[in-house]
């Protein structure tokens, strides 16, 4: 469960995020939709305790990110877009194990989890090879396993399919859906209405740091009609 309460972040005089409020329930995928520079990454970085809010706060899994950042970090898993962000000279297993260790997992638990994830993601064949020469899809799987190895209750995805080919995108999208099945609270940021519409239960549109729309995908369609991409462009276009 995520409750964002009056969260703001100013960089000098840029109001990157400006007093936003929204909630994400367990088992719900919320799409954080916005153009480039709208404030998606900044929002997710604050929720993940990487950036300190200028004002406001958020409760993650019941923990206040200002008061208990450590507990917050134990509850979240992140998968950010762009480079998969792996250590090329470590094997797939070592990459995952590093994050399990940093998240304070016991040896037995981490080994079981890693074995399970390797099997689940079909990585047995290359789990013990160094990731440097992996294909993009293979790397993506390692990054996925790493993000969830410590069983977080909350998952944050920041444009996770950015720059991925169709196959790799599919892997990521399937993973997000499997997180939903495990009843996690999920934020999925994107600049593509199409992707959000396909995956998410609810759409939060962010524009220049402010939330300009927050409703269920079905309500959205009822209110604006079927061509959501066009609506999105209109909504962010004038303002």
């Amino acid at each position, binding site marked *: 469960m995520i409750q964002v309460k009056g969260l703001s972040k100013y960089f000098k005089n840029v109001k990157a995020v400006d007093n936003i409020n929204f909630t994400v329930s367990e088992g719900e995928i919320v799409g954080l939709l916005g153009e480039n520079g709208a404030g998606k990454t900044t929002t997710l970085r604050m929720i993940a305790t990487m950036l300190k809010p200028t004002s406001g706060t958020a409760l993650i899994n019941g923990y206040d990110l200002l008061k208990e950042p*450590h507990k917050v970090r134990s509850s979240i898993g992140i998968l950010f877009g762009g480079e998969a*962000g792996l250590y090329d*000279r470590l094997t797939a297993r070592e990459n995952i194990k*590093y994050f399990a260790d940093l998240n304070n997992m016991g040896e037995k638990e981490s080994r079981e989890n890693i074995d399970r994830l390797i099997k689940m993601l079909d990585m047995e064949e290359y789990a013990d090879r160094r990731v440097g020469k992996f294909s993009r899809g293979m790397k993506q799987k390692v990054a996925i396993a790493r993000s969830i190895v410590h069983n977080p209750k909350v998952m944050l995805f920041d444009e996770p399919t950015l720059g991925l080919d169709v196959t790799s995108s599919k892997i990521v999208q399937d993973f997000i859906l499997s997180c939903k099945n495990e009843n996690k609270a999920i934020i999925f940021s994107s600049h593509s209405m199409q992707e959000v519409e396909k995956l998410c239960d609810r759409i939060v549109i962010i524009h220049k740091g402010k939330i300009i729309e927050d409703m269920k995908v079905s309500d959205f369609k009822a209110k604006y009609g079927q061509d959501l991409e066009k609506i999105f462009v209109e909504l962010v276009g004038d303002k």
Partner: protein
Amino acid sequence: MNMKAIMTVFKKELIDLLRDKKTVIVSIVIPLIIFPIMFGLMGRSVEGNIKKTSENLKISIKSKNENQLIAFLKSQKNITVVDSIDIKKDVQDGKIYLGLIIPDNIEESIKNEKSADIKIIYDDTSQNSNMACNIIKSLIEEYSKEVVKTRLISKGIDYSILTPINIKEEVAAKEKGGFGKYMMSLLLPLILIIYGMTGPMAAATDLGAGEKERGTLEPLLTTQAGRMSLLFGKLLSITVMGLIGTISSIIGLMIGVKAGASAFGGDIPLIFSPITVIMIGIFVLLIIMVFGALELSISIYARSFKEAQTYLSPLTIIGMAGAYGTYMIDAKNASTVLFNVPLANVSLVIKEFIIGIYNPLHIGITFGWNIVYIVLAVLFARYMFSKEEVIFRV
């Protein structure tokens, strides 16, 4: 900050760095082989030359008739007398090392107890010719002493009348190998300080800017290991890498010196006492920690690998200045004030250790200051790691 997380980071970083061929080559292999190669070549060429020249002295003698001096010279095993039409030219061309012009009436002069003039033609710009000149001079000296001896004996005088004073040389340094130690006290601090500074650099670049460039920093920051655990784990691994690099350069130096010992007069102290090595090691470690922390701070500020390398190069120059600044200072009478100067103090203390001085005041001042520098450098790194503007610099 928790110990388990620090150790996790430390172990991972060390494995990661040691698997990187480039890092291993730059920080371990090169320091290990550069001195053996350098000194080996230097030593071999010098040694080779000395041998070549002294074992086969090619000279030419100009004299109308045979005489006893020529016979004496020819009887020397290492002298080859060759014919020469133009001695001067042949010396210049290096065909012969030197030429001797012996007057025709030399036998007569000697018999009549007069003195005779011998001319040596040599090339003072040639090492070989110089060496040959010295050898020939001492041979002629020897010969003339024999002549004097015969003269004195024929007059019934004791030969020792000519040598009222005998000189016996004794070196006044506490231990043997004084010259070698002196050479070491010039070279070693310089090398160690430069390695202490540059040793952690590759690792620091990789662990700060490299982490940003790979996109691994953000996931790392969302783990339960706090930023300070990450920082200290990284600092520890950088320090260990720097230490490995320094040790390999010392080993390299020892091997190198052995290989090229003759280049230094053949009496380099190959093995210092364990105490000396430990003391030197401690101070090099301090330098590594100061620079490791500084380099990591700079590296985390940089947006990319390239940027980090650009920012780090001025640091090397500052370090070099400190090391070279004390290069020529004689450790035996270094002023205590100098031990308050960063880098210079470590350089001087190492110099003292090498020649066997353990001055508690100097050691204390230097150690104290370096602890201060480490604390400052680590605080700086901490500050940099906690600043959003640094970690998420755009």
